[in-house]
């Protein structure tokens, strides 16, 4: 079976005041239909840029300098803007972190949920609006039909994110990309929103890319995980395998540094020394080497590429002695 989405060797650069910054450096990922892939990493790891480049939303300063993004037989890095507009919101939908800034404050919720249906499925407005009501019901907004006339400011944070999910589902997309969808929400609401998203994508057999920094969220909702660091994918595996058997020193450190609810309270937490790297000034070789307890001379000179350590478990590391 061909994957739904296959990113190969993707490199993205941004033109900034301080020269070119390479935000992604040879990123490869693939995603099957119906699968949930979590992309995890810290600020500046390139997880959001990966998502934005799928939709061609890099803006004026960003440019795909190398690689391809295969989706449904097309290379999204090569298609026209016109074609991308047909795909966006239709076959690929996006849910952003901050629902308040991604909803238009002067349009009603109903208008915004109905718009993609009207635009992409060429339905008459009345029919699209009716479908918007059904969608709001599916995302469990009470009094859905009545609330179509509300403006975003009349919705709470959790309800706005539900409305965003309704918009994302409107055209039955094959792929939904959610970039930190619950970071701005409280934990009890986060659990509601993520379960809803997971259940609805499963029902529709859509795929989900979940971008997050929260390893708990990954454990609860993801099938597969890609760990990013310094603009590269450093490890990919199924969620179970990754947590049980992390193979990259960065992943291992990350797992060890979070306090567990069944851990030993008051003990010293494991720390990864140093800071996440600055993309405009990446360390040579493996960009994790200055923080890596196992770094050897080779790591400071050559970039490791992804290679298989177990079936479907890849890591970019020269191997280290534990």
């Amino acid at each position: 079976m061909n994957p739904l989405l296959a990113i190969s060797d993707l490199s993205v650069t941004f033109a900034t005041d301080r020269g070119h910054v390479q935000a992604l450096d040879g990123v490869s990922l693939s995603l099957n239909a119906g699968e949930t892939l979590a992309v995890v990493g810290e600020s500046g790891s390139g997880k959001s840029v990966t998502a934005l480049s799928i939709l061609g939303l890099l803006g004026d300063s960003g440019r795909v300098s190398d690689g391809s993004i295969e989706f449904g037989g097309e290379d999204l890095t090569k298609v026209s803007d016109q074609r991308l507009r047909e795909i966006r919101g239709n076959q690929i939908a996006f849910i952003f972190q901050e629902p308040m800034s991604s909803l238009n404050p002067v349009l009603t919720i109903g208008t915004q949920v109905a718009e993609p249906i009207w635009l992409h499925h060429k339905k008459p407005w009345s029919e699209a609006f009716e479908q918007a009501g059904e969608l709001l019901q599916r995302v469990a907004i009470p009094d859905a039909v009545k609330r179509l006339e509300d403006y975003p400011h009349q919705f709470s944070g959790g309800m706005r994110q539900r409305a965003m999910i309704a918009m994302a589902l409107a055209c039955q997309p094959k792929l939904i990309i959610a970039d930190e969808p619950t970071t701005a929400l409280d934990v009890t609401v986060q659990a509601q929103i993520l379960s809803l998203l997971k259940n609805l994508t499963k029902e529709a057999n859509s795929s989900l890319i979940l971008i997050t920094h929260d390893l708990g969220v990954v454990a609860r909702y993801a099938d597969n995980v890609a760990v990013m660091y310094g603009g590269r994918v450093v490890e990919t595996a199924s969620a179970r395998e990754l947590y049980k058997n992390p193979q990259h020193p960065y992943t291992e450190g990350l797992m060890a540094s979070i306090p567990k609810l069944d851990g030993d309270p008051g003990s010293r937490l494991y720390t990864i020394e140093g800071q996440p790297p600055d993309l405009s000034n990446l360390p040579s070789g493996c960009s994790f080497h200055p923080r890596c307890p196992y770094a050897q001379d080779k790591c400071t000179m050559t970039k490791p590429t992804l290679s298989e350590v177990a079936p479907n478990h890849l890591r970019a590391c020269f191997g280290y002695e534990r």
Partner: protein
Amino acid sequence: MSDSNILEVRDLQVHFPVTEGLLKRQVGSIAAVNGVSFHIKRGETFSLVGESGCGKSTTALSVLKMESVLGGQIIFDGEDITHHSPAQMRGIRRKMQMVYQDPFGSLNPRMKVGSIIGEPLRVHGMAGDKAQYHARIKSLMKTVGLLEDMAERYPHEFSGGQRQRICIARALALDPKLIICDEPVSALDVSIQAQVVNLLMDLQERLGLTYLFIAHDLSVVRHISNRVAVMYLGKIVEEADRDTLFQTPKHPYTKALLAAVPEADPELEAQRAEQLIIGEIPSLRSPPSGCTFHTRCVDAMPICQQQAPDRTTDGASTLACHLYP
């Protein structure tokens, strides 16, 4: 009040006015903190947890008298500070310092780091002569793991984790007894959070500090706290020592909150039955009648709508819930 307590808060009430129109006529008020009582023992870490709008930060700010207190009593280090004037509070704040959530917003971008850390010394007239002042700054920087030569740099040259170290050094400048930490790690990257949590625990041990810790991340709270109080809509619903609260949570809200936090373990998560709490936090403008949690509670009974529960204790936990009369 016993000598072992550094802080005691009794029946704290903090209300915010609701105003209307051009003249800002007051038309009502919001009870942001509504009858909160707790005490903190010397040398321990006491955490207030809850979701946004539960009043945890307001409670902390009113301990510093940075919010005006409508009712109740605040006793700090044996002294009733409830009605202290701003001038009297200056002396008290030497002994109570704060570390904020956002290490970007809480450092003046135009001041050098050394000057930021030394500012409390200058403000409180404790700078001494030049040599003493600079020596103190150096030693503070060393204490929090910053290099001495960083004193001449500006905040923007530092990462989030280092900035939080600068904030902690500034809070330590006056040798405070109590440090209020309002979400000190939630703005930081995962790999940096552990560094700051370790630093806070080291400092507590070395300097005998007491922390009032405010956070929503329950795994960090469990790691660092001795006792924990869970707040909901301006009230403490459950308070217990750490192990009791995390191993045998009793209040339905505490249970729901713990269940909502995903564990970083897919196998554990697969076994866990998903227990979703319904609805969202009601508005403080029109809080529900009776027990304010009844609209979302899975165990709600008829009485919960009518009557606010009293606080009861069984020795291990203090609860405000009709299930535990």
